[in-house]
């Protein structure tokens, strides 16, 4: 890694505002602890400058985008962690209950599989489908949004994940 790329306060403020806006538009919430979140945003910007993509500040990226797609923020594990623990792994995002003070967050176990076990896609409903579809169905790996079209959208309309976060579902 050798050295931390420079990140300005203006960049941190701009990304924080964008993430907060997109989160609320999609029904998600940033952690209300502003100082803590600004630290995470700085980590996201450092990773963006270092790797070219916004990998999770609390995880160890390989530097190869294809190997790290699952930990590009928002990561593939955000929604299940929000459901089970009220926050994602790094606690950038929190659930409604945490935001409202009805639930406290604690330490969140790492859900990401070890290197040798990644990329194993569980059988989906599509595996048993034998009928013909007019269009393939694409699934956003981050939020589960489904759409039927020739190609996945450039950006998920729900969670704003980019095109490369979609997988063929049917």
């Amino acid at each position, binding site marked *: 890694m050798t050295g931390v790329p420079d990140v300005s306060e203006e960049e941190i403020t701009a990304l924080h505002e964008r993430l907060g806006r997109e989160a609320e538009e999609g029904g998600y919430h940033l952690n209300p602890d502003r100082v803590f979140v600004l630290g995470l945003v700085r*980590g996201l910007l450092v*990773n963006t400058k270092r790797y070219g993509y916004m990998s999770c500040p609390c995880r160890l990226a390989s530097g190869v985008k294809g190997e790290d797609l699952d930990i590009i923020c928002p990561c593939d594990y955000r929604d299940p962690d929000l459901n089970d623990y009220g926050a994602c792994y790094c606690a950038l995002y929190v659930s409604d209950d945490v935001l409202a003070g009805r639930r406290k967050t604690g330490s969140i176990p790492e859900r990401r599989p070890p290197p040798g076990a990644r990329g194993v896609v569980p059988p989906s409903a599509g595996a048993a489908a034998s009928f013909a579809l007019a269009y393939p169905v694409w699934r956003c790996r981050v939020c589960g949004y489904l759409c039927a079209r020739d190609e996945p959208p450039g950006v998920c309309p729900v969670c704003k994940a980019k095109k490369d976060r979609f997988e063929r579902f049917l």
Partner: protein
Amino acid sequence: MKHPTVPAGFLLCAIALAGALILAGCTATAPSPSQATQAPPVAVTTAPALPSYMVHVEGRDRGVILLVGRSTCPWCMKTKELLANLSVGYYWIDLETLNEAETAQVISAISVCGQTNSVPILIVNGNRCIVGYQEDQIREAVG
């Protein structure tokens, strides 16, 4: 709760990861064969050198405690704050500052904890790994 343990063979070489990295630094400074032929054998009495990226933070001696993390990870910084509040001495490795070879060396070493996905990782006296900011566990282990 069951905690991952470091293999016994590893402990023979050094106390946990800290020791392993100290030994790595020591190996790098070993005398060359030509030097060995010119001087009579002597017992090594000096402390082995730490790898340059391994920083010792002063504090109460609670054994060999190693924290591996990233300075851009807020949970790693919270772990450092907690250790500071507990006045515990430890070794700190900031993965942000390492080159590829050093990163590979450290990640290989921390694999004894059973995972290399995320930080912070705290290794306490070679027999306990605490992954993530686990305040209660850290207090109980080193407080």
